[in-house]
């Protein structure tokens, strides 16, 4: 057993390819996006740089061979996902297990939670000016928000925050992917009026009719 000698050892150090296969396997089976640290831990390596590199390779290879799945970077981690072009088929598969789309009002409650988390129901209601318990329950049930703790005030009310599923649903890598709240401030009418005329108007238009 000369080269095999090593093999009889408890375990040989895994090769680059070995680790890559393990990563593929993990990224495939996981139900949550996996951050690099978690991938390292499950693959049994401390080399985060290598893992990041291999993940990048996996992503490119899937694209190159035009695979049915792709590697998505979402919610602070990586996870395989189906490619958008197959959406119609996937929808057929899950036709009887689809959850209803959110109403606009539920999206509003969600946006408050996303920007102000962690916050209590009373705090949401103060911003919305209306009882939000029904909306909150919908969001909890759809796993877009969760209880993240209790506020240390009278009654120790629950505080809510967004979830990984929130980020996945909205295709965000992280909360920092959301534009700053201030960017949604209503343009001051004065400013809007004095805004420079956008050049595109008539000049560019003509060529571009179809």
């Amino acid at each position, binding site marked *: 057993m000369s080269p095999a000698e090593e093999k009889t050892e408890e375990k040989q150090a895994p090769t680059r390819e070995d680790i890559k296969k393990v990563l593929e396997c993990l990224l495939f089976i996981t139900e949550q996006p996996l951050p690099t640290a978690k991938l390292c831990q499950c693959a049994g390596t401390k080399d985060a740089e290598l893992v990041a590199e291999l993940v990048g390779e996996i992503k490119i290879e899937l694209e190159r061979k035009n695979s049915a799945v792709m590697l998505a970077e979402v919610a602070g981690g990586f996870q395989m996902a189906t490619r958008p072009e197959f959406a119609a088929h996937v929808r057929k598969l899950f036709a009887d297990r689809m959850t209803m789309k959110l109403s606009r009002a539920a999206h509003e409650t969600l946006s408050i939670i996303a920007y102000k988390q962690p916050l209590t129901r009373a705090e949401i209601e103060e911003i919305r000016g*209306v009882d939000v318990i029904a909306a909150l329950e919908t969001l909890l049930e759809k796993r877009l928000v969760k209880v993240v703790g209790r506020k240390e005030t009278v009654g120790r009310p629950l505080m809510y925050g967004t979830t990984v599923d929130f980020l996945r649903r909205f295709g965000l890598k992280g909360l920092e992917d959301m534009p700053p709240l201030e960017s949604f401030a209503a343009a001051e009418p004065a400013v809007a009026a004095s805004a420079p005329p956008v050049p595109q108007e008539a000049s560019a238009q003509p060529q571009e009719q179809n």
Partner: protein
Amino acid sequence: MAYEVHLEMFEGPLDLLLFLIKKDDLDITNIPIARITGEYLSYLEIMKDLNLETAGDFLVMAATLMAIKARSLLPSQDEEVAASEEEGPDPRAELMARLMEYQKFKEAAKFLEASAEKSKDVFYRGAPRFDDSQKTLNIGIFDLLESLREILDRCPDKSREIAGEEFPIEEKIAKILALIDKNRRATLQEIFADETKRRGILSCFLALLELVKLQKVFIRQDEPFSAVSIYKREEVADVAR
């Protein structure tokens, strides 16, 4: 009224105010308080006619508006006195700040909706799946109330008598469903076309809300200020599965 409609009122007084500001193209930083108070109260009136469970929130806001209005009617030097006497923050400025703050979240919600639209075709293991092919209600209660107001304005019958002819909601529900069954959709105008009595219109409107709540129909306005249509909702599979 044997039949009561309970709406999950997702929208509150601030939504109503923002709706009115947008509708009349007003400046959110400088709301004409008398005008907006008048409009606000007229919506409240309709909600009362409909017997909608208006949470106390709407009444509290009405009181706030009227207080601001009263204050604004004081002669200016008295205003200073009043301000220094109360030494509380200016309620008008406070209200506008709240509105502007909330407005930002409403815009952020649109950003979220657009993001969902972009990533709706990507499916992950373990993630909840939303039925994005589904059309959903994209119109607020106040848009609907606005339509209702127009319909009521055109109706010659202004009687508020409770006694007399009955307009059971169940009948109106049947009527609406029959209309939609024909073409899978109907416009708001079609639904109210044969209603000649004020109470009939109100009952028909409640029937519509009830159908939305029961998820039998959804209401859409595909473009702002365009015609409002009612669509039949496909039978959604049982949530239990």
